[in-house]
């Protein structure tokens, strides 16, 4: 899609690739360390960073000339969160009564 610079995207692509592999390694290693409730948080935060890297740089959202694509992604994630969070409004509070 963006064909301004011909050689610099390569460096960026390999850099992102390395970051993704590193993130995977960290996730794997961290799982074997006792962090209590933060194990899940760490794993999900790293996963989200990896997903963002793929979406922004490999799927070229970062270079997109219009905001529409970002709007599509944000709306989708928003409604996914509605599903997850409002369901938890039920499951998280059943024990209260």
């Amino acid at each position, binding site marked *: 899609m963006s064909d301004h610079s011909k050689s610099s995207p390569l460096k960026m692509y390999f850099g992102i690739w390395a970051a993704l592999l590193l993130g995977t390694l960290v996730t794997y290693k961290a799982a074997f360390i006792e962090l209590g409730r933060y194990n899940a948080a760490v794993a999900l935060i790293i996963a989200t960073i990896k997903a963002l890297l793929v979406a922004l740089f490999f799927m070229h959202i970062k270079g997109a000339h219009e905001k*529409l694509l970002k709007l599509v992604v944000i*709306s*989708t994630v928003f*409604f996914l969160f*509605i*599903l997850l969070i*409002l*369901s938890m*409004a*039920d*499951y998280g*509070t*059943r024990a*209260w*009564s």
Partner: protein
Amino acid sequence: MSMATTTIQPVERENYLNKEYGALSWLFTTDHKRIALLYLMSITFFFFIGGFFALLIRLELLTPAGDLVQPDTYNKLFTMHGMVMIFFFLIPSIPAVLGNFLVPLMIGAKDLAFPRVNLLSWYLYIIGGLMMLHCMLTGGVDTGWTFYTPFSTAFTNTKIVEAGLAIFVTGFSSILTGLNFVVTIHRMRAPGMTWSRLPLFIWAHYATSIIQILGTPVIAITVVLVAVERTLHLGIFDPKLGGDPLLFQHLFWFYSHPAVYIMILPSMGVVTEIIACFARKRIFGYSFVAFSSIAIAVFGFLVWAHHMFVAGISIYAALVFSLLSYAVAVPSAIKVFNWTATLYKGSIHYDAPMLYAFGFIGLFTVGGLTGLFLAALGIDVHVTDTYFVIAHFHYIMVGGALMGYLGGLHFWWPKISGRLYPESWARLAALIVFLGFNLTFFPQFILGYLGMPRRYFQYPQEFQVLNVLSTAGATVLGVGYLLPMIYFLWSMRYGKPAPDNPWNAAGLEWQTTSPPTTFNFEEEPIVTWEAYNYDELDAPRKQGVPIAR
């Protein structure tokens, strides 16, 4: 006062209907207008199937005893009535017929963004429809259209998997239609057609498409889970195996509540177009109406558990969903206020489309208000799973969505077919529909409040009078629906040829021929005027200047 003009156009100009003949030219078409007609024929077919089941239900309910059919058969009747009407009639209806036909025309485009995907969408609908037909003919389903677990996964021995897969396939059709509309509206507007000049019909379909795109996949995965659970006995929804039946309901209603907005939003778009034209006025509060469509789509996703108030969810969740359900009524109310304000001091004409629009406003309001009754936890505990709920949603779906669909068919019939329908018969049919509808469904509010449960084929003697009234109404309603079928077909051969703009209506679709050519416009339109410019359109008439056509 009828507004149809008497200018006659030559009939044999090339248009999308006579460009090519033969079944293959229809079955392999990518012309959005032909695909719209393919859908029109298919959904009419399924409407009559669903209506047939309704007829049997109402016949059974003429008497308090269960004497027409077996109990299991009755279960199948109301299940199939619901599934067919919702998935194979209401959800496609306006978007697939009127939306497909009009969206490119209204924005000044030659076709939708993805014409072949559009055709695929129709084929998926047909495949899903055939699967459902086969399912019905080989035993059907008896779980209610809501196929709650664990009955549907562990106990019933009817054809759940097949029905579910039929819904899955048809759901894909719905998703692709929505996707096509969103991309078309973003990318294919003619020069000068800015977002604030779009007809509100387009805004309504844009909002509908958002729901189709984001909601339908969730019922798709739900159906997959039910099929997998049923065949492999997994236990995700089965309490005996540690699963939660309510999880099914959460996932099911996450789609099925927004689905009702898929069914009503396009109809609201139609009504907006009709009211502006037959009151000869700009829509009051254009931006309010436009944004309320989007608001309905968004808020519609936040309220699903109001279908589960008595199912066993936590009371705190019930409070949250009750509050949110009140909020979702606000944008709908905004629309009703804007339509009313548009009518105020308008120059009102009572052609058949307008009669349907008036019917819509009244009946949708009743249906919507009774929805608020149901959103109140205290009332809901009393009337849930009674005929009150049935009356509520039929007021919206039939009194609202279906009347909008019929009004739209009448309004755009000259454009679609190049013929005028007979106005007197159309007004008569609209009146019969309105009277028949109220006779059918108003008694059901009372029945529900008095305690008659839904999905029961026998009832206490004291409910018989109201049930008989309801069945009588259903018969009248049926006649009302048959009439347009007959005279629309009649008009295709014997109707007066229609001028390009018989209503002198605003909108790009009226700037081209009736019927349009395959690529819609001779030259790409360049839009320099605002939407609903009725004051400009009517100025020559008001000054006594004859209108040139």
